[in-house]
Protein backbone atom coordinates (compact mmCIF):
# COMPACT_ATOMS: atom_id res chain seq x y z
CA UNK A 1 0.00 0.00 0.00
CA UNK A 2 1.19 3.47 -0.82
CA UNK A 3 -0.98 6.55 -0.93
CA UNK A 4 0.18 10.01 -1.95
CA UNK A 5 -2.11 12.86 -0.97
CA UNK A 6 -1.88 16.57 -1.62
CA UNK A 7 -4.02 18.98 0.40
CA UNK A 8 -4.29 22.60 -0.57
CA UNK A 9 -6.14 25.77 0.28
CA UNK A 10 -5.81 29.33 1.55
CA UNK A 11 -3.56 29.91 4.51
CA UNK A 12 -5.91 29.66 7.48
CA UNK A 13 -8.08 26.86 6.09
CA UNK A 14 -6.16 24.36 8.12
CA UNK A 15 -4.71 22.23 5.35
CA UNK A 16 -1.40 21.92 7.16
CA UNK A 17 -2.92 20.55 10.34
CA UNK A 18 -5.27 18.29 8.42
CA UNK A 19 -2.19 16.80 6.79
CA UNK A 20 -0.34 16.46 10.07
CA UNK A 21 -3.30 14.73 11.64
CA UNK A 22 -3.52 12.24 8.82
CA UNK A 23 0.20 11.53 8.87
CA UNK A 24 0.15 11.16 12.62
CA UNK A 25 -2.71 8.68 12.47
CA UNK A 26 -0.87 6.74 9.77
CA UNK A 27 2.17 6.55 11.98
CA UNK A 28 0.00 5.37 14.84
CA UNK A 29 -1.23 2.51 12.71
CA UNK A 30 2.35 1.48 12.07
CA UNK A 31 2.68 2.79 8.56
CA UNK A 32 5.55 4.75 7.11
CA UNK A 33 4.47 8.35 6.73
CA UNK A 34 5.81 11.67 5.56
CA UNK A 35 4.37 15.17 5.66
CA UNK A 36 5.86 17.86 3.51
CA UNK A 37 4.63 21.45 3.55
CA UNK A 38 5.08 23.90 0.74
CA UNK A 39 7.10 26.65 2.28
CA UNK A 40 6.41 30.03 0.91
CA UNK A 41 8.81 32.77 0.08
CA UNK A 42 10.00 34.80 3.05
CA UNK A 43 6.73 36.68 2.51
CA UNK A 44 3.10 36.86 3.42
CA UNK A 45 -0.23 35.58 2.15
CA UNK A 46 -1.15 33.24 -0.64
CA UNK A 47 -2.03 29.59 -0.64
CA UNK A 48 -0.64 26.70 1.31
CA UNK A 49 -0.37 23.03 0.56
CA UNK A 50 1.17 19.91 1.94
CA UNK A 51 1.91 16.43 0.71
CA UNK A 52 1.24 13.41 2.88
CA UNK A 53 2.47 9.98 1.93
CA UNK A 54 1.37 6.85 3.76
CA UNK A 55 2.92 3.58 2.84
CA UNK A 56 3.55 0.12 4.12
CA UNK A 57 7.09 0.41 2.86
CA UNK A 58 9.85 2.99 3.21
CA UNK A 59 8.88 6.17 1.45
CA UNK A 60 11.14 7.23 -1.37
CA UNK A 61 10.41 10.81 -2.42
CA UNK A 62 8.38 12.79 0.10
CA UNK A 63 7.11 14.89 -2.78
CA UNK A 64 4.45 13.79 -5.16
CA UNK A 65 4.18 14.67 -8.80
CA UNK A 66 1.27 12.23 -9.45
CA UNK A 67 -0.76 12.09 -6.25
CA UNK A 68 -3.34 9.38 -5.71
CA UNK A 69 -5.60 11.84 -4.01
CA UNK A 70 -5.93 15.60 -3.95
CA UNK A 71 -8.11 17.60 -1.55
CA UNK A 72 -8.69 21.21 -2.53
CA UNK A 73 -10.24 23.75 -0.26
CA UNK A 74 -10.31 26.68 -2.70
CA UNK A 75 -10.37 27.50 -6.38
CA UNK A 76 -6.70 28.34 -7.04
CA UNK A 77 -5.78 25.00 -5.52
CA UNK A 78 -8.19 23.19 -7.76
CA UNK A 79 -6.61 24.78 -10.79
CA UNK A 80 -3.14 24.01 -9.65
CA UNK A 81 -3.56 20.43 -8.47
CA UNK A 82 -6.44 18.86 -10.41
CA UNK A 83 -4.22 18.24 -13.46
CA UNK A 84 -1.68 16.40 -11.30
CA UNK A 85 -3.99 13.69 -9.94
CA UNK A 86 -2.93 10.24 -11.07
CA UNK A 87 -5.16 8.56 -13.65
CA UNK A 88 -7.83 6.72 -11.74
CA UNK A 89 -7.12 8.82 -8.69
CA UNK A 90 -9.45 10.90 -6.58
CA UNK A 91 -10.04 14.57 -6.09
CA UNK A 92 -12.07 15.93 -3.16
CA UNK A 93 -13.43 19.40 -3.72
CA UNK A 94 -14.68 21.87 -1.18
CA UNK A 95 -17.87 22.57 -3.05
CA UNK A 96 -18.84 25.29 -0.60
CA UNK A 97 -16.20 27.54 -2.12
CA UNK A 98 -15.56 25.95 -5.50
CA UNK A 99 -18.25 26.19 -8.12
CA UNK A 100 -16.06 25.15 -11.01
CA UNK A 101 -16.25 21.60 -12.38
CA UNK A 102 -13.24 19.36 -12.84
CA UNK A 103 -12.53 18.89 -16.50
CA UNK A 104 -11.16 15.40 -16.30
CA UNK A 105 -13.05 12.17 -16.72
CA UNK A 106 -10.22 9.84 -15.78
CA UNK A 107 -10.43 10.61 -12.10
CA UNK A 108 -13.07 10.32 -9.42
CA UNK A 109 -14.49 13.64 -8.21
CA UNK A 110 -16.02 13.93 -4.76
CA UNK A 111 -17.74 17.16 -3.82
CA UNK A 112 -17.73 18.04 -0.15
CA UNK A 113 -19.68 21.09 1.01
CA UNK A 114 -17.11 21.44 3.76
CA UNK A 115 -17.74 25.02 4.82
CA UNK A 116 -21.48 24.59 4.86
CA UNK A 117 -21.28 21.59 7.11
CA UNK A 118 -18.69 23.27 9.30
CA UNK A 119 -20.92 26.30 9.61
CA UNK A 120 -23.80 24.04 10.52
CA UNK A 121 -21.59 22.65 13.28
CA UNK A 122 -21.02 26.20 14.38
CA UNK A 123 -17.34 26.62 13.54
CA UNK A 124 -16.19 27.32 10.01
CA UNK A 125 -12.65 26.34 10.98
CA UNK A 126 -13.49 22.64 11.06
CA UNK A 127 -14.19 22.56 7.32
CA UNK A 128 -10.84 20.84 6.98
CA UNK A 129 -12.03 18.00 9.22
CA UNK A 130 -15.19 17.55 7.20
CA UNK A 131 -12.98 17.16 4.17
CA UNK A 132 -10.68 14.72 5.93
CA UNK A 133 -13.67 12.70 7.15
CA UNK A 134 -14.91 12.35 3.60
CA UNK A 135 -11.48 11.28 2.47
CA UNK A 136 -11.10 8.69 5.21
CA UNK A 137 -14.49 7.20 4.39
CA UNK A 138 -13.65 6.99 0.70
CA UNK A 139 -10.16 5.56 1.00
CA UNK A 140 -9.32 2.92 3.49
CA UNK A 141 -5.83 4.15 4.25
CA UNK A 142 -6.20 5.10 7.89
CA UNK A 143 -9.08 4.30 10.21
CA UNK A 144 -11.40 7.15 11.09
CA UNK A 145 -11.11 6.03 14.65
CA UNK A 146 -7.35 6.32 14.70
CA UNK A 147 -7.65 9.83 13.35
CA UNK A 148 -10.09 10.73 16.10
CA UNK A 149 -7.79 9.28 18.72
CA UNK A 150 -4.91 11.26 17.27
CA UNK A 151 -6.65 14.58 17.78
CA UNK A 152 -5.52 14.92 21.37
CA UNK A 153 -1.90 14.32 20.41
CA UNK A 154 -1.88 16.72 17.51
CA UNK A 155 -3.95 19.57 18.92
CA UNK A 156 -2.18 21.71 21.46
CA UNK A 157 -3.51 21.28 24.98
CA UNK A 158 -5.31 24.62 24.96
CA UNK A 159 -7.38 23.48 21.98
CA UNK A 160 -8.51 20.22 23.50
CA UNK A 161 -11.98 21.63 24.10
CA UNK A 162 -12.35 21.58 20.33
CA UNK A 163 -11.90 17.82 20.08
CA UNK A 164 -15.63 16.99 20.14
CA UNK A 165 -16.50 19.39 17.35
CA UNK A 166 -13.57 18.11 15.29
CA UNK A 167 -14.77 14.56 15.79
CA UNK A 168 -18.24 15.55 14.75
CA UNK A 169 -16.89 17.21 11.64
CA UNK A 170 -14.92 14.10 10.75
CA UNK A 171 -18.08 12.02 11.14
CA UNK A 172 -20.19 14.38 9.07
CA UNK A 173 -17.61 14.30 6.30
CA UNK A 174 -17.41 10.53 6.45
CA UNK A 175 -21.18 10.26 6.36
CA UNK A 176 -21.20 12.13 3.05
CA UNK A 177 -19.46 9.39 1.11
CA UNK A 178 -20.53 6.30 3.04
Amino acid at each position, binding site marked *: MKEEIIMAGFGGQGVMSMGKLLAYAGMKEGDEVSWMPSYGP*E*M*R*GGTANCTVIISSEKIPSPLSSRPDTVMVMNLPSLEKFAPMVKEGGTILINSSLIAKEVERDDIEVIKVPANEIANELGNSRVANMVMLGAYLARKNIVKLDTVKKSLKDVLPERRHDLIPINEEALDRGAALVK
Partner: protein
Amino acid sequence: MKLVAGYPDSLTEKPFHYCPGCTHGIIHRLVAEVIDELGIREETIGVAPVGCSVLAYEYFDVDMFEASHGRAPAVATGVKRVHPDKIVFTYQGDGDLASIGTAEIIHAANRGEKITTIFVNNAIYGMTGGQMAPTTLVGQKTTTSPFGRDTNTAGHPIKISEMLSVLDGSAYIARVSVHDPKHIRQAKKAIKKAFQVQIEGKGFALVEVLSACPTNWGMAPVEAVKWLADNMVPTYPLGEFKEVE
Protein backbone atom coordinates in the same frame (compact mmCIF):
# COMPACT_ATOMS: atom_id res chain seq x y z
CA MET B 1 -10.79 69.39 -7.36
CA LYS B 2 -7.33 69.59 -6.00
CA LEU B 3 -5.45 66.46 -5.02
CA VAL B 4 -4.77 66.54 -1.29
CA ALA B 5 -3.33 63.05 -0.96
CA GLY B 6 -2.25 61.17 -4.04
CA TYR B 7 0.03 58.49 -5.31
CA PRO B 8 3.69 59.52 -5.31
CA ASP B 9 5.59 59.52 -8.59
CA SER B 10 8.54 57.88 -6.94
CA LEU B 11 6.57 54.71 -6.26
CA THR B 12 6.01 52.16 -8.99
CA GLU B 13 2.46 50.89 -9.45
CA LYS B 14 3.27 47.57 -7.90
CA PRO B 15 1.10 46.78 -4.87
CA PHE B 16 3.11 46.18 -1.72
CA HIS B 17 3.50 42.59 -0.60
CA TYR B 18 3.40 43.65 3.05
CA CYS B 19 0.90 42.18 5.45
CA PRO B 20 -2.33 44.07 6.08
CA GLY B 21 -1.62 47.01 8.33
CA CYS B 22 2.14 46.72 8.07
CA THR B 23 3.46 50.23 8.46
CA HIS B 24 6.39 49.59 6.14
CA GLY B 25 3.88 50.78 3.55
CA ILE B 26 3.41 54.15 5.22
CA ILE B 27 7.14 54.65 5.47
CA HIS B 28 7.62 53.76 1.81
CA ARG B 29 5.06 56.34 0.85
CA LEU B 30 6.67 59.02 3.00
CA VAL B 31 10.07 58.40 1.48
CA ALA B 32 8.59 58.54 -2.00
CA GLU B 33 6.72 61.75 -1.24
CA VAL B 34 9.90 63.36 0.05
CA ILE B 35 11.80 62.34 -3.07
CA ASP B 36 8.99 63.80 -5.16
CA GLU B 37 8.90 67.02 -3.21
CA LEU B 38 12.65 67.48 -3.40
CA GLY B 39 12.53 66.74 -7.11
CA ILE B 40 15.35 64.23 -6.89
CA ARG B 41 13.75 61.11 -8.34
CA GLU B 42 16.20 60.97 -11.20
CA GLU B 43 19.16 61.71 -8.94
CA THR B 44 18.41 59.15 -6.30
CA ILE B 45 19.82 55.69 -5.79
CA GLY B 46 18.28 53.51 -3.11
CA VAL B 47 19.56 50.46 -1.32
CA ALA B 48 17.08 47.83 -0.11
CA PRO B 49 17.95 45.55 2.82
CA VAL B 50 17.22 41.93 3.53
CA GLY B 51 14.07 41.90 5.60
CA CYS B 52 10.41 42.30 4.81
CA SER B 53 11.35 45.35 2.77
CA VAL B 54 13.70 43.31 0.62
CA LEU B 55 11.49 44.03 -2.37
CA ALA B 56 11.70 47.79 -1.83
CA TYR B 57 13.63 47.77 -5.08
CA GLU B 58 10.38 46.92 -6.82
CA TYR B 59 8.46 49.74 -5.18
CA PHE B 60 10.67 52.78 -5.37
CA ASP B 61 10.80 54.10 -8.89
CA VAL B 62 14.44 55.07 -8.66
CA ASP B 63 17.66 53.19 -9.33
CA MET B 64 17.95 50.53 -6.66
CA PHE B 65 20.23 47.95 -5.11
CA GLU B 66 19.32 44.87 -3.19
CA ALA B 67 22.10 44.64 -0.60
CA SER B 68 23.18 41.65 1.46
CA HIS B 69 21.73 41.44 4.96
CA GLY B 70 22.95 44.34 7.06
CA ARG B 71 25.43 45.74 4.59
CA ALA B 72 23.31 48.40 2.93
CA PRO B 73 25.42 51.22 4.41
CA ALA B 74 28.55 49.69 2.89
CA VAL B 75 26.81 49.30 -0.46
CA ALA B 76 25.58 52.89 -0.23
CA THR B 77 29.12 54.01 0.58
CA GLY B 78 30.39 52.33 -2.58
CA VAL B 79 27.68 54.03 -4.61
CA LYS B 80 28.08 57.46 -3.05
CA ARG B 81 31.83 57.46 -3.52
CA VAL B 82 31.34 56.75 -7.22
CA HIS B 83 28.51 59.27 -7.58
CA PRO B 84 29.13 61.95 -4.96
CA ASP B 85 26.63 64.20 -6.70
CA LYS B 86 23.73 61.73 -6.43
CA ILE B 87 21.43 61.15 -3.50
CA VAL B 88 21.89 57.76 -1.93
CA PHE B 89 19.65 56.25 0.71
CA THR B 90 19.35 52.95 2.52
CA TYR B 91 16.14 51.49 3.86
CA GLN B 92 16.78 48.97 6.63
CA GLY B 93 15.02 46.96 9.27
CA ASP B 94 16.17 46.52 12.85
CA GLY B 95 17.56 43.04 12.34
CA ASP B 96 19.39 44.33 9.32
CA LEU B 97 20.73 47.55 10.79
CA ALA B 98 20.86 47.00 14.53
CA SER B 99 22.05 43.42 14.58
CA ILE B 100 24.03 41.96 11.70
CA GLY B 101 24.76 45.39 10.19
CA THR B 102 25.94 47.13 13.35
CA ALA B 103 29.50 47.68 12.20
CA GLU B 104 28.44 48.98 8.81
CA ILE B 105 25.98 51.57 10.09
CA ILE B 106 28.32 52.78 12.80
CA HIS B 107 31.22 53.25 10.47
CA ALA B 108 29.14 54.86 7.74
CA ALA B 109 27.97 57.29 10.41
CA ASN B 110 31.43 57.76 11.84
CA ARG B 111 32.95 58.46 8.44
CA GLY B 112 30.22 61.03 7.96
CA GLU B 113 29.22 59.20 4.81
CA LYS B 114 26.86 61.51 2.97
CA ILE B 115 23.95 59.12 2.79
CA THR B 116 20.48 58.96 4.28
CA THR B 117 19.27 55.94 6.23
CA ILE B 118 15.67 55.09 6.91
CA PHE B 119 15.80 52.72 9.83
CA VAL B 120 12.55 50.84 10.36
CA ASN B 121 12.45 49.60 13.92
CA ASN B 122 9.60 47.17 14.47
CA ALA B 123 11.22 45.39 17.40
CA ILE B 124 11.21 42.05 15.62
CA TYR B 125 12.47 40.06 12.64
CA GLY B 126 9.50 40.20 10.31
CA MET B 127 10.59 38.38 7.22
CA THR B 128 11.93 35.29 8.89
CA GLY B 129 8.89 34.84 11.06
CA GLY B 130 9.11 36.79 14.25
CA GLN B 131 12.44 36.15 15.93
CA MET B 132 13.83 38.42 18.59
CA ALA B 133 15.63 41.54 17.41
CA PRO B 134 18.15 43.54 19.43
CA THR B 135 15.35 46.12 19.57
CA THR B 136 12.77 43.70 20.98
CA LEU B 137 11.24 45.09 24.14
CA VAL B 138 11.97 43.66 27.55
CA GLY B 139 9.60 40.80 28.20
CA GLN B 140 8.34 40.73 24.62
CA LYS B 141 7.66 37.22 23.38
CA THR B 142 9.05 36.25 20.01
CA THR B 143 9.76 32.92 18.39
CA THR B 144 13.29 32.96 19.78
CA SER B 145 12.40 34.56 23.10
CA PRO B 146 9.41 32.35 23.83
CA PHE B 147 9.44 33.28 27.50
CA GLY B 148 9.82 36.98 26.76
CA ARG B 149 13.07 38.86 26.28
CA ASP B 150 15.15 38.33 29.38
CA THR B 151 17.62 41.12 30.01
CA ASN B 152 19.85 38.78 31.91
CA THR B 153 20.65 36.68 28.87
CA ALA B 154 19.64 38.88 25.95
CA GLY B 155 20.26 42.38 27.23
CA HIS B 156 18.17 45.47 26.71
CA PRO B 157 16.63 47.01 23.58
CA ILE B 158 19.47 48.68 21.75
CA LYS B 159 19.35 52.43 21.33
CA ILE B 160 20.67 53.03 17.87
CA SER B 161 19.78 56.71 17.51
CA GLU B 162 21.31 57.58 20.84
CA MET B 163 24.44 55.67 20.02
CA LEU B 164 24.93 57.14 16.58
CA SER B 165 24.41 60.63 17.96
CA VAL B 166 27.64 60.26 19.90
CA LEU B 167 29.64 60.00 16.68
CA ASP B 168 31.13 63.10 15.08
CA GLY B 169 30.19 62.06 11.57
CA SER B 170 26.43 61.99 12.08
CA ALA B 171 24.77 65.21 11.00
CA TYR B 172 21.13 64.41 11.59
CA ILE B 173 19.61 61.74 13.80
CA ALA B 174 15.93 61.55 14.70
CA ARG B 175 13.47 59.01 15.99
CA VAL B 176 9.86 59.16 14.84
CA SER B 177 6.82 56.94 14.82
CA VAL B 178 3.99 56.27 12.38
CA HIS B 179 1.23 55.16 14.70
CA ASP B 180 -1.09 58.08 13.97
CA PRO B 181 -1.42 60.91 11.45
CA LYS B 182 0.23 63.45 13.68
CA HIS B 183 3.30 61.32 14.12
CA ILE B 184 3.27 60.38 10.47
CA ARG B 185 3.46 64.06 9.61
CA GLN B 186 6.42 64.48 11.96
CA ALA B 187 8.02 61.40 10.49
CA LYS B 188 7.80 62.85 7.05
CA LYS B 189 9.39 66.08 8.20
CA ALA B 190 12.29 64.18 9.69
CA ILE B 191 12.73 62.10 6.56
CA LYS B 192 12.76 65.23 4.48
CA LYS B 193 15.42 66.79 6.69
CA ALA B 194 17.47 63.63 6.43
CA PHE B 195 17.52 63.99 2.67
CA GLN B 196 18.16 67.70 2.81
CA VAL B 197 21.14 67.17 5.07
CA GLN B 198 22.57 64.92 2.39
CA ILE B 199 21.82 67.35 -0.40
CA GLU B 200 23.64 70.01 1.59
CA GLY B 201 26.57 67.64 2.07
CA LYS B 202 26.51 67.90 5.83
CA GLY B 203 27.15 64.28 6.67
CA PHE B 204 25.36 61.14 7.66
CA ALA B 205 21.63 61.29 8.36
CA LEU B 206 19.39 58.67 9.90
CA VAL B 207 15.74 58.55 10.80
CA GLU B 208 14.66 55.73 13.06
CA VAL B 209 11.02 55.04 12.38
CA LEU B 210 9.11 53.01 14.95
CA SER B 211 6.92 50.67 12.97
CA ALA B 212 4.31 47.98 13.56
CA CYS B 213 4.52 44.32 12.60
CA PRO B 214 0.98 43.14 13.25
CA THR B 215 1.70 39.67 11.91
CA ASN B 216 4.58 38.78 14.14
CA TRP B 217 3.30 40.73 17.09
CA GLY B 218 0.19 38.57 16.70
CA MET B 219 -2.17 41.53 16.65
CA ALA B 220 -4.74 43.11 14.42
CA PRO B 221 -3.36 46.21 12.71
CA VAL B 222 -5.39 48.65 14.77
CA GLU B 223 -4.25 46.95 17.93
CA ALA B 224 -0.69 46.92 16.66
CA VAL B 225 -0.39 50.66 16.13
CA LYS B 226 -1.82 51.13 19.60
CA TRP B 227 0.77 48.75 21.04
CA LEU B 228 3.39 50.71 19.16
CA ALA B 229 2.24 53.95 20.75
CA ASP B 230 1.85 52.45 24.20
CA ASN B 231 4.94 50.28 24.41
CA MET B 232 7.53 51.14 21.84
CA VAL B 233 7.34 54.90 22.11
CA PRO B 234 8.02 54.89 25.86
CA THR B 235 11.01 52.59 25.34
CA TYR B 236 12.30 54.56 22.40
CA PRO B 237 11.84 58.26 23.09
CA LEU B 238 10.94 60.22 19.98
CA GLY B 239 12.72 63.35 18.92
CA GLU B 240 15.59 64.85 17.05
CA PHE B 241 18.76 63.69 18.70
CA LYS B 242 21.20 65.54 16.61
CA GLU B 243 21.12 68.24 14.03
CA VAL B 244 24.31 69.80 12.79
CA GLU B 245 23.93 73.32 11.47
